[in-house]
């Protein structure tokens, strides 16, 4: 695999070149992201981790096409990323399920926007992914009748069902309790191994990043930059209390604190 920072775009799902993003804040121009160059390989689980204010959520919005770069380019395969698209679905921090639809209809929402499918295929796909996240028996339930963990599972099924090329996760576990989170880590890894999906996860939880990512990209704040990239060569499924995982997590933590101390 050789030099990671200069991967050729041939096997890259997402290619970021010199991406810079600025915002006009109350205290003047703020550079949220500066000169980000990064490749996300096809079928890779990339975890982006960093303290708040490092621009990691901004980066995800850029990848989703919900915001635009000021400088640099983002490409999905050969296509430049300019607008939201079904090829890059997002799981948000809050589940963002629509309260006027039941669980099945929520999962069908994205599928119904794919014109090349028949209604029967859509139903089959929605039910397949609901079963995959263990909620096959809840399809008639309304979102408010489910627990936070179940809702986030439905959101996962909704993002997976239209079969996007890349799944973007914006801290989707941060609002959940520790037990539910651990369960979901297991589910996500199982689905990732089974479906070989390209996933970009943004989180402030270093252990979570190490547990889920094939690579962990550490961001440093003010302005947001790539600080260091770590390879995680631990076998899956990984568990949060695995000592090897803890050791790697503390290595990442040390790198972060040494940077913040500067």
């Amino acid at each position, binding site marked *: 695999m050789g030099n990671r920072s200069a991967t050729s775009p041939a096997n890259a799902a997402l290619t970021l070149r010199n991406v810079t993003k600025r915002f006009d804040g109350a205290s003047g121009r703020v550079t949220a992201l500066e000169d980000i160059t990064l490749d996300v390989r096809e079928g890779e689980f990339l975890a982006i981790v960093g303290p708040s204010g490092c621009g990691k959520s901004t980066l995800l919005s850029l990848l*989703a*096409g*919900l915001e635009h770069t000021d400088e640099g380019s983002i490409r999905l395969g050969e296509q430049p990323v300019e607008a*939201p*698209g*079904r090829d*890059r*679905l*997002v799981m*948000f921090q*809050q589940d*963002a399920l*629509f*309260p*006027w639809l039941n669980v099945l209809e929520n999962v069908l*929402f*994205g599928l119904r*926007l*794919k014109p090349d499918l028949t209604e029967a295929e859509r139903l089959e796909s929605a039910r397949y992914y609901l079963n995959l996240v263990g909620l096959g028996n809840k399809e008639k339930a*309304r*979102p*408010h*009748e489910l627990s936070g963990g179940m809702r986030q599972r439905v959101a996962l099924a*909704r993002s997976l069902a*239209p079969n996007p090329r890349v799944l973007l996760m914006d801290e989707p576990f941060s609002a959940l309790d520790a037990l539910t989170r651990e369960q979901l880590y297991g589910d996500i890894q199982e689905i990732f191994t089974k479906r070989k999906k390209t996933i970009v996860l943004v989180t402030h939880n270093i252990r979570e990043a190490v547990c889920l990512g094939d690579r962990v990209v550490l961001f440093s704040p003010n302005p947001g930059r790539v600080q260091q990239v770590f390879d995680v060569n631990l076998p899956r499924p990984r568990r949060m209390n695995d000592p090897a995982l803890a050791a790697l997590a503390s290595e990442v933590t040390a790198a972060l604190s040494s940077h913040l101390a500067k």
Partner: protein
Amino acid sequence: MASKLPRPVIPTFVALLILGGWEWFVRSGRVSEVLFPAPSHVLAWFWESLLSGELLEATWVTMRRLIVGFAIGAALGVPLGALCARVRWVRDTLGVLALGLQTLPSVCWVPLALLWFGIREEAVLFVVVMGTLWAVVLAVQESVLNVPPLYLRAAQTMGSNGWHLWSRVIFPAALPGVLSGMKQGWAFAWRSLMAAEIFVVIIGGFGLGSLLNAGRELLRMDQVMGVMAVVMIVGLLADLIFFSPIEGWLRRSRGLER
């Protein structure tokens, strides 16, 4: 003790007490029965006009005007409100105008309506539409602007935009607010219609307001009070039969109340 009684017992008792006291007070001759009729007289008028068909016809005329006027007001108000929410300069112009016109009591439209349309059905409808429209425009604008941005972001990443985004996300998300706007618009329409009917008596269209005003002219206070009671009951029924069930279902299905 009191807690053991079924809940309607005390209100019923108090109501009977008040009506009985009122009846006794009028019959004792302390006030003119012409100006302050006893409840039994009001009830007698009610029964009589119900049998003659006068009351039902007036109620039907009024309800027809209310429903048609409200429907026009809501049909115009929903797209205009959505446009206000969507386009900045429309909000800064039409939205501000709506805010101003909504504070205008709808009875103020009556002179204008009479001059524009003459003593005709259209004048009454115009007043009702003006009473409904601005409340609906403002409510729709407000509830569309308050749709959580997260829903929009989620829908957009799934490929929803344009009309699909409006019909499948923005409007359903705004529906509870739109419905309370409709309810408010209905209340305004009801008030403006009564004002219009008292002022504008149209041949062949004798509504409840006209009946009320006729009672004044004939010095029949039993009719005046009877019609007032009917107006109240119709307003309550509209809420109980139409708006409350829809609102309740909407809130329950979204888990907005426990």
